[in-house]
């Protein structure tokens, strides 16, 4: 079966009619997630670089630890996100007597993650533009004994005007592309779990809308 990326993005119902007619295959979804995890890792490297700069003075080697953690966390986190989202959809769809396998759900979630890869690329470009403008407070050794100092530094870091602007842009981009993914996932879950369109919309819509509302709430907390 040939994978049509435009079909995934624009005509998901037709795409899943074809794709899910085939035997379960996680290769392409995994590649999409891998692509997303690579972009996320690059973004994590840029953000981690700033955090490392902020905490480098606290302890020798602290910057390397932070950088590696940020890159690895972003890379692995994308795969974990894939599993968690699939699990949430799978569990909720049980209430609607869904019948498909979990791996089929993972396949759907993997395909539906494609818009978020595009969104990650946009946020990466924004990060490249904004991060050099961010003022990074420098923490020193004494901050190890002073959690309030670390908190104050983080607050300063997060409230930097450039950082605030970057966060707002990335959040809005994430919301748009997350809802785009949700749109794709609704069609996919319907097919994968053999439930109605309404039930699928509820399975996908509720957690995703809650997540998006959480993102909007975070915007207000900046």
């Amino acid at each position, binding site marked *: 079966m040939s994978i049509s990326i435009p079909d995934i993005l624009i005509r998901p119902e037709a795409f899943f009619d074809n794709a899910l007619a085939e035997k379960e295959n996680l290769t392409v979804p995994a590649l999409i997630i891998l692509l997303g995890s690579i972009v996320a890792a690059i973004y994590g490297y840029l953000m981690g670089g700033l955090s490392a*700069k902020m905490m480098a*003075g606290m302890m020798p080697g602290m910057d390397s630890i932070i950088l590696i953690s940020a890159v690895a966390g972003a890379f692995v986190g994308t795969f974990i996100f894939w599993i968690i989202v699939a699990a949430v959809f799978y569990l909720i769809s049980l209430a609607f007597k869904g019948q498909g396998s979990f791996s089929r759900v993972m396949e759907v979630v993997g395909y539906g993650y494609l818009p978020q890869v595009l969104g990650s690329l946009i946020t990466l470009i924004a990060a490249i533009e904004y991060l050099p403008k961010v*003022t*990074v*407070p*420098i*923490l*020193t*050794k*004494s*901050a190890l004994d*002073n959690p*309030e*100092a*670390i908190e*104050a*530094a983080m*607050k*300063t870091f997060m*409230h*930097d005007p450039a950082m*605030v602007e970057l966060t*707002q842009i990335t*959040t*809005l981009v994430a*919301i*748009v592309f997350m*809802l785009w993914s*949700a*749109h794709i996932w*609704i069609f996919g879950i319907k097919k994968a779990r053999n439930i109605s*369109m*309404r039930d699928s*919309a509820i399975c996908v*819509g509720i957690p995703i*809308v809650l997540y*998006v*509302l959480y*993102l*909007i709430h975070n*915007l*207000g907390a*900046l």
Partner: protein
Amino acid sequence: MQKPAFSSILIGLLLVAGLVLPALAYETPESIVAAGKVYVSNTTYDPAVFFTGDTGTVTYTVSNGNTDLGVVVNHATLSEPNQKFRILDGTHQNSAQIGPGKSQTFTFTVIAEGSEGFYYPTFSLGFRDANSLFSKQMVQIDNTPLLLTVIDKPDAFTKDKKKMIYLQVANPRKNSVKNAYLEMTGDGASFTPTQVFIGEVAAGAKIPVNFSVAPGQETTLHLTLHYDNGDNPHSVTMDLPIIFGPDKKAASPIMSNVQVENLGGVWHVTGDVNNGGLETANTVLVTSLSPAVPEDPYKVYVVGALKPDDFGSFEITFSAENTETVPIRLSYKDADGNVYETVQDVKISATSINVPAGAGGGLPIVPMAAGLVIVVLFIGGWVYYLKRYKK
């Protein structure tokens, strides 16, 4: 053998008489009366009051009070029975005529060899046609020197800082002294001026004398007041210890209200400088020292002059890595241009990070509204789709 002629003998007698007679007194009642009108009209000692060992002069003015007769005087001498005043020069052996109403001076060089006290040297003057004239005039030997006193001086000195010392020269003697000047010496100390010329100091007078000293080390200043009593040099000395210590009146700029902020990796330190001293601190400068590296725009901040109890604000910028404290140097100059420095460590740990004013203030309405609109559109779109899908 031929006998001399009578005329020759007479001529010889006349010649001898001509040679001898002028030396002989022709004491007559008139000449004695005339000599009685000759008197010592003035006596001048220079110096007026002697130190033991001083040499000087004494001048007698002899006046002829006759209006129509001149007197011939000779052999003027001066003597002091106890040899407390000894004549060095000036005995007058020649004859001189003092015309009617005229005066004649007789000057003697003397040396005062007695101890302190009053003495009465005797001046005698012989008359050709009468007896001698005697005169005793009092002269004093007084060994009281000039007084050199400190009127005001700093409580303590500071290395290389110029400070004024206020002295007073007083003359407790009965006569004036001249050519007075103050000479100052001291190891490692420089003086302005190097010497102070005072000139004549009248009897009972007091004259202020000021000079400044910049000591390079703790030392003792040797002050010597030179002066001449007549033509006799004298001096008095005074030692003045120079001890370093805190200057209680000095300017004392103090940093306060120091705040540290890191903006873009560059530390901004702001604060106030208060002058807690009693003198003006000029050209107050604030800058950071190593390991900090001063950065633009405020590598060095010039606060300017601060009067006592005055204050000024400063802001400096620097970068610093791997350090928790940065030494901040505050320097200023006194009125003489001497530079003073104080260094204060400023902690630049994370505890000093300030959240920029206004940060977190107010909700980001636009992005939140945009997010909500997107969610509403998504939900509305799907509700509409589901209704149409159901039909």
